[in-house]
């Protein structure tokens, strides 16, 4: 059990920005970002040679691409993302998962680590069950397929599920998982963070409470720099107070 708890995905968008030591530049929809020298990346759009921002977000330039990292928004599935799904429906050959996005997703019986006979899906996963899955494919009209075949992917028994804004997941994970391991260290919880903004936590009642509060702080202050040390301070204080 201990070995399977992992940070699920590393996305360092926020953290890299922080490393440069420059103050983050907040841009708004319609802001002119560049004229002709860079390529239009994520969260931007192009009109002629001009590149504009499409989001309220943080401007970042990486390898000739100009990106705007959005500060809010729903989860839109990407192939390869690890997501936490909740079973909302059953068919004889598949389960329908709510993956906290505008699109629900089928989990086919051939994409699970068990051998499933026709019509026997409910013996393995039932409505309300929580599973850790990976997005297999997303097509142009956003039809999604997920899989449970892969290292670490499994049904999540027990624990609690909390939800944060999907755009803040990279901050909760931190650079190379620094933030999430910090929370795990101070709370002794098992945690999985899905790219879709769902976080599964297992531990004692008080530990879960503390971890949830820490995540809440990260979510609220996601755009503030020096968040890791702030969170560490908070966790240290809380732990100290509880031990007295």
């Amino acid at each position, binding site marked *: 059990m201990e070995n399977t708890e992992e940070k699920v995905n590393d996305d360092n968008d926020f953290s890299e920005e922080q490393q440069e030591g420059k103050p983050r530049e*907040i841009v*708004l*929809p*319609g802001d002119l970002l560049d004229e002709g020298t860079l390529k239009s990346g994520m*969260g931007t*759009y192009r009109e002629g040679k001009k590149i*504009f921002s*499409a*989001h*309220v*977000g943080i401007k970042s330039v990486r390898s000739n691409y100009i990106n705007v990292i*959005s*500060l*809010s*928004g*729903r989860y*839109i599935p990407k192939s390869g993302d690890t997501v936490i799904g*909740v079973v909302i429906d059953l068919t004889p050959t598949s389960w329908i998962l709510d993956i906290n996005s*505008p*699109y*629900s997703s089928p989990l086919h019986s051939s994409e699970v680590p068990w051998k499933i006979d026709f019509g026997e899906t409910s013996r393995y996963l039932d409505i*309300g*069950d*929580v599973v850790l899955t990976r997005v297999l494919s997303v097509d*142009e*009209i*956003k039809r999604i397929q997920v899989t449970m075949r892969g290292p670490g992917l499994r049904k*999540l*028994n*027990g*624990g*609690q*599920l*909390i*939800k*944060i804004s999907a*755009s803040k997941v990279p901050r909760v994970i931190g650079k190379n998982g620094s933030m999430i391991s910090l929370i795990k260290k101070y709370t002794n919880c098992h945690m999985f963070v899905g790219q879709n903004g*769902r976080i599964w936590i297992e531990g004692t*009642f008080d530990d*879960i*409470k*503390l971890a*949830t*509060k820490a995540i*809440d*702080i990260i979510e*609220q*202050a996601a*755009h*503030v720099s020096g968040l890791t040390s*702030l969170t560490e301070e*908070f966790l240290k204080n*809380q732990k100290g*107070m*509880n031990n007295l």
Partner: protein
Amino acid sequence: MMTDEIQLIDESGIRLDGRRADELRPIKIEAGVLKNADGSAYIEWGKNKILAAVYGPREVHPRHLMNPSRAIVQCKYNMAAFSVGDRKRPGYDRRSVEISKVISDAMEHVVFTERFPRTTIDVFIEVIQANAGTRCAGLTVASVALADAGIPMRDLVPSCAAGKIDNQVVLDLFKDEDNYGEADLPIAYVPRTGKILLLQMDGHMTYDEFDKALDMLVSACEEIYTIQRDALRRKYSEDASEKLLAEIQNSNLASIEQPSILEGSTDIPPEDSTIITDNRKGGGFND
């Protein structure tokens, strides 16, 4: 007629509320006022008070409205029963359906709908207090709420109305001017591209008057545009960050309730189950 008896603008060009012909009412916008919505904003435009909330992109209901290649934008303009002097009969009427439609159409032009096929972006515009010009104020605040919701869009959309009172073209009519004036011309105008996304007219104007009104509206929209941008910037400003950090440092765990963002759980241990049940009743659940 009443119009002959009431003087809406005096000899020196000062209106009933003390404004000059080309002056806007004071406008205040705040972004991100509602926690449960994906994005929200609140506007005070003179005596108008309007709240906008954005949900989505999300699944379309009813399903036949779904577009397989892009998202649809559904704005709902609604006036509270207490928003006007006499009680407004709650619910849909011809006026609110029309306003909802023109605002939806304007918004569909700035949102990148093709990025979210098969979904809807719902915008709720609730008029809490009305004093003329609510469709413009509603559109202005809705676009701030959309940006706050993280929905990709080409630009913010400022909107404003001009009109004619006592045979003079004036900007941003308030209630009495709207009621006793001769014409009303609301537009939505994107300063960067110069595109007009909404244009309606009630009453009569000559071509010259129309041109004059349009000139006034263009510069007014530029002014409103900066107010919209300030509202969004303020949410992420240094001051806001510092305040947030101070709050976090002062907070202590004892005062914190069970996770309010608790969404659901499996195999709840017996000793904790009562607390979780209570939390569900307390409205911790969304969707």
